[in-house]
């Protein structure tokens, strides 16, 4: 049912069998078909990155009254990068993003894995419960942010539930306390994306061959032993994919955080995307933003290239 094709990353090599169909007409058609996508990629990757490199070397801001292509009048060389290295707010936003990832992804993974174990074989009501579990991941993230904004108001339902258990009125100011605000935003992220982990891990778990598990049972293996020696090793690639997807998306996190707290109180929930957004929209020092963005792009390119290479070699 499930077919691991991470090797598709190197898809081009695998098309040797098209040789039969490779005439001049086919080549031309292939080029025409891929042209729009190629142009869009160039349009969104090549121009912006060149532009970004250029602007990052200047002190340009849209408020300066000169068009961007004359930004060289404000040339400052690598000064933006020096500033970046010494920008505590940037580093703290980066660190905070890493903390968020370090909490959200493992929790989502463990919850998703636990749920997947419960869903791996059939039981009455499985289909309906499965669909219901998936609902949060389909809610628009901005709307999810708004839901949690409501829930965590000091007079809101979360405190209402806590009051019920505490037996006295609880009025915790979730979103205006720095630590609690980060906790609340992390909860919203876990709420929204645990279903995605569940979905992917379940698909992987279902694809573990049934007869191998039967064979292990007949050899006397306990459930735990089967899980550690058969199920998990066989899910290795899928687990890597699931974690990679969540790490990548979690690094970009913006919508729910920004709507719940605006990055605040202070900078308590300011992730890297929120930081860049604020510098872009509020402080408007675009030359500096370009430098930040470029630095992140370079680091991410290296990390992702290494990760993809590693993933290929694992295959």
């Amino acid at each position: 049912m499930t077919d691991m094709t991470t090797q598709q990353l190197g898809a081009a090599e695998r098309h040797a069998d098209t040789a039969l169909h490779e005439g001049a007409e086919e080549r031309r058609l292939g080029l025409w078909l891929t042209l729009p996508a190629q142009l869009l990629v160039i349009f969104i990757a090549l121009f912006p990155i060149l532009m970004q490199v250029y602007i990052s070397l200047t002190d340009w801001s849209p408020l300066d009254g000169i068009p961007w292509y004359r930004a060289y009048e404000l040339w400052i060389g690598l000064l933006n990068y020096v500033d970046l290295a010494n920008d505590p707010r940037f580093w703290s936003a980066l660190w905070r993003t890493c903390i968020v990832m370090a909490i959200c992804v493992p929790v989502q993974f463990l919850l998703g894995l636990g749920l997947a174990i419960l869903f791996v074989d059939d039981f009455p009501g499985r289909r309906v419960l499965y669909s219901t579990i998936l609902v949060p991941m389909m809610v628009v993230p901005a709307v999810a942010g708004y839901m949690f904004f409501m829930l965590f108001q000091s007079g809101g339902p979360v405190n209402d539930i806590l009051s019920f258990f505490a037996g006295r009125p609880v009025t915790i100011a979730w979103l205006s306390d720095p630590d609690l605000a980060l906790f609340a935003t992390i909860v919203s992220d876990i709420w929204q994306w645990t279903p995605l982990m569940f979905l992917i891990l379940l698909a992987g778990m279902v694809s573990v061959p049934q007869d191998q598990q039967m064979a292990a049972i007949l050899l006397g293996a306990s459930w735990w032993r089967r899980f550690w020696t058969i199920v998990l090793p066989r899910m290795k690639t899928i687990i890597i994919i699931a974690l990679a997807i969540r790490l990548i998306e979690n690094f970009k996190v913006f919508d729910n955080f920004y709507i719940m707290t605006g990055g605040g109180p202070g900078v308590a929930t300011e992730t890297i995307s929120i930081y860049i957004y604020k510098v872009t929209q509020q402080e408007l020092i675009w030359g500096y933003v370009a430098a930040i963005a470029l630095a992140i792009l370079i680091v991410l390119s290296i990390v992702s290239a290494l990760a993809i290479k590693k993933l290929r070699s694992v295959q």
Partner: protein
Amino acid sequence: MQRSLSFEIFRYAAIFTFLALSLVPTIWMISMAFKPIAEWQASGADLTWWPANPTLDNFRFIFGESGSDLIVALERTAGRPILASLLAASFGTLIAMTAGTAAAYGLSRFGAGGNLPLALIQLRIFPPMAVMIPVMIMWAFLGLIDSWYGLALIYGIVTMPFSFWLMKTFFDDMPREIEDAALVEGCSRWRVFLRITLPIMRPALASSALFVFILNWSDYLIALLLTTRDWVTIPVYMASLSSSMTGQLYGAKAALGLIAAVPPVIMGIAIQKQLVRGLTFGALKE
């Protein structure tokens, strides 16, 4: 395989506990959307978990109908942002699907564009925030700021990796024999693609398009940066449903949130089977 009764009890208990927690936010929003003003303004001990006097006032309010108890009048109603979201997401999907499907076919059948798979994955890895400065400059230069088509264009590009990878795995799965038979009959390659392949791929195209639409519809950040007034989308507009004078208009926001949340949830459940494939770039097919 037989499982013990205690396991079955544990299974249902665990699932229902998880669901109870996971449904609270959604249920709370639904409840708020149908509460009259007195109820959604209440807090602390006065909270009602389910509307005591359910009403559609919140929906009427965001569409500019007076007669509700709200004193404020909206400067702008929700109609236009809903239209903006629909137009941008739909045409963005059209762009992503057209370019992505064509490229996927070109690669899957003729080996053209071997650089695309990796390039598109990297495009997806980059945070949109990290390329937005040049995009904002380019969009301003091209006169695309605050327009639904400007938004549709960037949506189309941002979600193209998904349409490309999804369609590529579908094309890879499709048996070649069907096309080869038509080729032997003397059809041109173009004809085969348009008349044979695409019609066969209709279900795959539909589920891919729905998937891409959900992604486009879910955007917040890009619209926040590229629209200002006339074509703000639902999530951006939602923030305006509060002011220093009125405070948070919870009920109105919940009503709008419900309107925004329903289509992707329905579509997502409709394409449940393809979700894994889409989310993992086709690495995992169910």
